């Protein structure tokens, strides 16, 4: 209604009384949305001579972009790595529940599993947009099986693999299909991995380095072949050493091709990484930091024993261990918990606000609101 229709007829929503994150600061500005896209209100005013159809009063809240979780293994009793006949309803269930944590898109993650599991699970879930039904599915994150036995963490050794023919054949044999796959974690020191990295990148799949004993040069080579992410920095990799920084060294490496950024996932649950380490990483390379939950089946569930892939996990308070050991196995932190913990751990330019999620919007539509 209130535009000259030169661009679109769709209704325009204006979020008022809010603070938005713009230019690395929280500013008091209105947010304008039409058909799921954020508008430049100045263009709207002068070009289209338009104004809002609907106003949403945010009552002083902070509007942040919806959180994206690229490493989440399940939650609320659902385990993405468990081959069942109805994976997609499990994914949808989690997708709906994580709206409460402000997550609007995610990558369902599969830990190292036998080929049968991948062959069964992968075809059942498609990339899809979020909405009232739940957070959007960006595609699978396949964490393994091409990882190092020495840094397997909670992954099962018998299902780890190496590259035999060093090409797409190994991937296809293990996974069955690469459709609907957004990200693959692999260890760059594995023989013939560079070719695989290049193949995956050509297909638009993000390659992440992790669960590895690779040194810095191997990691740099992988980045030059197209790898752009590090899976849960510090965990399941060699510790930073001043003469061989290992994968951690990518944060300040000068071998990263111009114009490219190496991003790194961090589980900011207060358990997987000491806040001091979190701060070191952030200060070394602030623009690469990506918060992930690495949440497991038990996230959202009470303490006790649960399954993760082919294993049994035990919850003790906020910790999740491989049952009977002290090996950490994923986390049960929710994304908004990670964001709060990170803000506490580091000095960001966020206003002192509790950062509790009040409501979640996808494409400008409210899809979840906290009960008053």
């Amino acid at each position: 209604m209130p535009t000259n229709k030169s661009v679109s007829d769709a209704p325009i929503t204006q979020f008022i009384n809010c603070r938005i994150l713009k230019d690395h600061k929280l500013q008091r500005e209105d947010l304008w949305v039409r058909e799921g896209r954020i508008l430049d209100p100045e263009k709207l005013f002068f070009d289209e001579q338009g104004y809002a159809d609907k106003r949403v009063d945010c009552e002083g809240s902070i509007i942040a972009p919806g959180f994206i979780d690229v490493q989440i293994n399940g939650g609320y009793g659902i385990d993405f790595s468990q081959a069942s006949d109805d994976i997609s309803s499990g994914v949808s269930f989690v997708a709906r529940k994580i709206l409460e944590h402000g997550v609007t898109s995610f990558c369902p993650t599969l830990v190292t599993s036998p080929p049968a599991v991948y062959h069964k699970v992968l075809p059942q879930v498609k990339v899809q947009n979020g909405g009232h039904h739940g957070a959007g599915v960006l595609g699978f994150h396949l964490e393994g099986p091409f990882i190092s036995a020495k840094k397997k963490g909670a992954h099962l050794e018998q299902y780890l693999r190496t590259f035999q023919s060093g090409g797409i054949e190994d991937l296809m044999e293990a996974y069955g299909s690469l459709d609907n796959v957004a990200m693959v974690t692999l260890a760059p020191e594995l023989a013939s991995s560079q070719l695989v990295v290049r193949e995956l990148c050509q297909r638009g799949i993000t390659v992440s380095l992790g669960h590895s004993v690779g040194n810095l040069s191997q990691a740099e080579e992988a980045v030059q072949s197209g790898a752009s992410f590090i899976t849960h920095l510090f965990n399941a990799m060699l510790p930073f050493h001043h003469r061989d920084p290992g994968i951690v060294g990518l944060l300040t490496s000068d071998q990263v091709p111009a114009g490219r950024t190496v991003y790194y996932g961090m589980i900011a649950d207060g358990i997987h990484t000491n806040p001091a380490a979190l701060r070191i990483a952030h200060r070394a390379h602030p623009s690469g930091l990506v918060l992930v939950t690495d949440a497991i089946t038990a996230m959202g569930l009470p303490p006790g024993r649960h399954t993760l892939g082919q294993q049994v996990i035990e919850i003790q308070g906020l910790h999740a261990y491989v049952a009977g050991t002290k090996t950490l196995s994923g986390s049960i932190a929710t994304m908004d918990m990670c964001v709060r913990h990170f803000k506490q751990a580091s000095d960001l330019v966020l206003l002192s606000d509790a950062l509790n999620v009040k409501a979640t919007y996808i494409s400008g539509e409210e899809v979840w609101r906290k009960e008053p």
Partner: protein
Amino acid sequence: MRLVILDDYNLASEWAAKYIRNRIIQFKPSPERYFTLGLPTGSTPYGCYQKLIEYYRNGDISFKYVKTFNMDEYVGLPRDHPESYHSYMWNNFFKHIDINPANAHILDGNAEDLEAECQAYEQKITEAGGIELFVGGIGPDGHIAFNEPGSSLVSRTRVKTLAKDTILANARFFGNDLSKVPTMALTVGVGTVMDAKEVMILITGAHKAFALYKAIEEGVNHMWTVSAFQQHPRTIFVCDEDATLELRVKTVKYFKGLMHVHNKLVDPVLSMKDQ
């Protein structure tokens, strides 16, 4: 003329805003009869815009039935450049109020045919029924809008090349890099502003004092184009103490003595809520 002298910038901004508010409310604008307002840009009117936004937020005025015409715009500066007058008006005024975007007119400095754009602007003003109240400022060289020294006092909307003084004064908005300041602008003419029913000029700061002196205590002169308004039947100059520093003591005393009369124009201050 009325020369309204307030103690400082804030009080001057507030007086001006109250005056505009009262004029709009008294006019009782409606869909059949819009209030047409001419508007300036720059640091001087900023405080006035802030007050008007405050009055809008409190529900005391509405710009729903107000049409605005800005005085000028740079030529060749992208519309979304932070220093364009479009950006200034959007960020400092339009985005905070309820004006209909179709009624907010600003000259387009990137038009294909600049002369046609100027003529069309004059036409739009005529079609809107002329300007009820034109608010303006004064340059350190005594110019109104971009009618630089030497501009015809009966000029109309046109393209003007900016004077050195103006470019220097504007350099602070372009990182003090003279090469980045636009050299041309589209501006309403002196004649265009003279056509308005009423003109209100805001002048604050010691750096404007000499220009004010030339504008009101010397003769009508095309070197100090604001002086043209000595021949307008309804002009108000709103200033702060500092802007009067170059005036004769007698002038200042006379007009300060009239403040009780001037203040009747803004006291009581009217509100839409009472209608």
